[in-house]
């Protein structure tokens, strides 16, 4: 059901997560400590890590280096040479033997302004923590450096007045993270929305392409008998056995009922073999009338004949003008049936055509053309054109030609019946103007 998440999106997700992690970790990275000689010349630069306890000054701390005595600083340390207070004093203490905070507390008690504790086993730098309650009373900052750097410092000749600058990393400020968090959050949200939208879209498309059970029931089910033209179900590749229920799709492809129903209701409403739509033109089920759109869709085919059998009387042997067309154009489709009956009748008896024109008045005008079957010639059908030309002179129906009789009848209930028998209409005594056709005139036209 869940559409596959594209690879690039997944990558983006991972990238965002990593970025966020890095962002959060930035303040934890080690700060640096710079060693200067007496002429303020930088001789070394080493990484350090501030302790978790004690204050963390915002300004870099500049001070003289002193060595702790005892080196581990677990007991009281000798104080600094207080004669020089131009700079602060920083004491270097070895790790081990006791807790970090004890060492720092001792340095603080001795009057140092900061403490450096160096590792003794490796160059690893860890932010110093403390297990005892002493750390609450620590008021000086302290940092940790690695083993190599620590021994480097021990080697220095203190007479040469080396100084240190301890650069404190800026304290972690959640405020600066907020914009990032907002941006990332928006990105995440957008991605999530996009994903949800895509999923909904896919779900809808899938749903639209599936077949409803109502439509499924319309498809014929057959019990397989030996000798049927179907042999193998294309889905499960099993041969049909006697009495098995198979469903035959409109494209004449057959499948097991359990195989095809799953496909049709869960996947697509097409034949799996030929991809033909089961119900042409029902791609949107909520169209107002199914039959109309169906015929509409068929007609859009480029190979559909322009003149269909129901659209043309000429297919039924009479090549006369198709008044079905006129009827449809006037917009009264119900009349076309009566016209059809008339032409059917005409084909049997005499080739006369009638057209029903429903005008604004409640009258029906039958335009009837009488011809003898003997003199009938398909070529003479252009008389109709003349009749139509006659229309021009009068906005109402007025077709008077030698070959026509215009019979007006008040719109009867049995419209089709009266239309079907023009002779009967005349004999009913409904008023009409009738002119017998002139054979001679017709002959001249045929020349």
């Amino acid at each position, binding site marked *: 059901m869940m559409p596959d998440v594209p690879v690039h999106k997944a990558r983006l997700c991972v990238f965002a997560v990593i970025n966020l992690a890095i962002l959060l970790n930035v303040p934890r990275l080690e700060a640096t400590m710079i060693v200067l000689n007496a002429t303020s010349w930088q001789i070394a630069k080493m990484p350090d890590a501030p302790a978790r306890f004690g204050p963390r000054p915002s300004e870099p701390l500049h001070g003289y280096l002193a060595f702790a005595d005892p080196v581990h600083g677990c007991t009281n340390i000798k104080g600094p040479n207080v004669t020089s207070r131009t700079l602060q004093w920083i004491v270097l203490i070895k790790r081990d033997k006791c807790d970090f905070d004890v060492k720092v507390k001792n340095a603080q008690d001795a009057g140092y302004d900061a403490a450096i504790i160096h590792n003794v086993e490796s160059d690893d730098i860890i932010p110093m923590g403390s297990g005892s309650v002493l750390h609450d009373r620590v008021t000086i900052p302290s940092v940790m450096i690695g083993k190599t750097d620590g021994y480097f410092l021990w080697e220095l000749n203190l007479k040469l007045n080396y100084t240190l600058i301890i650069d404190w990393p800026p304290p972690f400020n959640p405020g600066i993270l907020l914009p990032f968090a907002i941006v990332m959050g928006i990105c995440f949200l957008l991605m999530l929305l996009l994903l949800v939208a895509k999923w909904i879209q896919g779900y809808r498309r899938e749903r639209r392409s599936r077949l409803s059970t109502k439509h499924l029931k319309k498809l014929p089910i057959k019990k397989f008998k030996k000798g049927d033209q179907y042999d193998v179900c294309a889905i499960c590749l099993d041969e049909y056995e006697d009495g098995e229920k198979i469903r035959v799709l409109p494209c004449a492809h057959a499948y097991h009922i359990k195989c095809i129903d799953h496909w049709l209701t869960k996947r697509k409403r097409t034949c799996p073999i030929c991809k033909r739509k089961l119900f042409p033109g029902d791609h949107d089920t909520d169209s107002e009338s199914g039959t*109309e759109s169906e015929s*509409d869709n068929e*007609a*859009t*085919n*480029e*190979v*559909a*004949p*322009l*003149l*269909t059998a129901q*659209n*043309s009387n*000429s297919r039924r042997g009479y*090549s006369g*003008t*198709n008044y079905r*067309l*006129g009827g*449809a*154009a006037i*917009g009264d*489709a119900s009349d076309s049936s009566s016209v059809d009956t008339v032409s059917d009748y005409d084909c049997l008896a005499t080739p006369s055509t009638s057209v029903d024109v429903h005008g604004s008045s409640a009258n029906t005008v039958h335009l009837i053309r009488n011809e003898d079957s003997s003199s009938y010639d*398909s*070529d003479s*059908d*252009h008389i*109709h*054109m003349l009749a*139509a*030309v006659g*229309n*021009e002179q009068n906005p109402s129906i007025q077709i008077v030609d030698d070959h026509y009789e215009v019979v007006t009848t008040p719109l009867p209930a049995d419209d089709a019946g009266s239309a079907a028998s023009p002779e009967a209409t005349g004999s009913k005594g409904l008023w009409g103007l009738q002119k017998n056709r002139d054979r001679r005139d017709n002959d001249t036209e045929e020349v």
Partner: protein
Amino acid sequence: MMQFLLLFSRQGKLRLQKWYGAQATKQKKKITRELITTILTRKPKMCSFLEWKDMKVVYKRYASLYFCCCVEESDNELLALEVIHRYVELLDKYFGSVCELDIIFNFEKAYFMLDELVLGGEVQETSKKNVLKAIAAQDLLQEEETPQGFFEDHGLG
């Protein structure tokens, strides 16, 4: 007098056009586009006639094709419809169950037929028989004139 005749598909592709009045190409294109969009949006049950500018447009849909012609206001629209149908019947008779593809591939024949039927915007020949006779004669002439290849001549084609 008929002003012009357009044949276009349901997708709005122009298949045939015949102009009986002088129009600039730009104007023709504009009119065509306008009419096609107007007619394609109309529902099947709507009237086949529509007043357009100071003229009347008569259209009729046959399967996938719309036949649309424009006549003057004094002309009879039923007559125009009749002419359209006559033309369709001619095509049908000539091609035998004509479809849109026939007209696409043999548009010159369709034009010939239209020229036989309508000339200068007026109906020229009402008889289908005569029109088809003329077209058949034309086809025959065309066949005779078509140069045959060497291989075809010797039955190797």
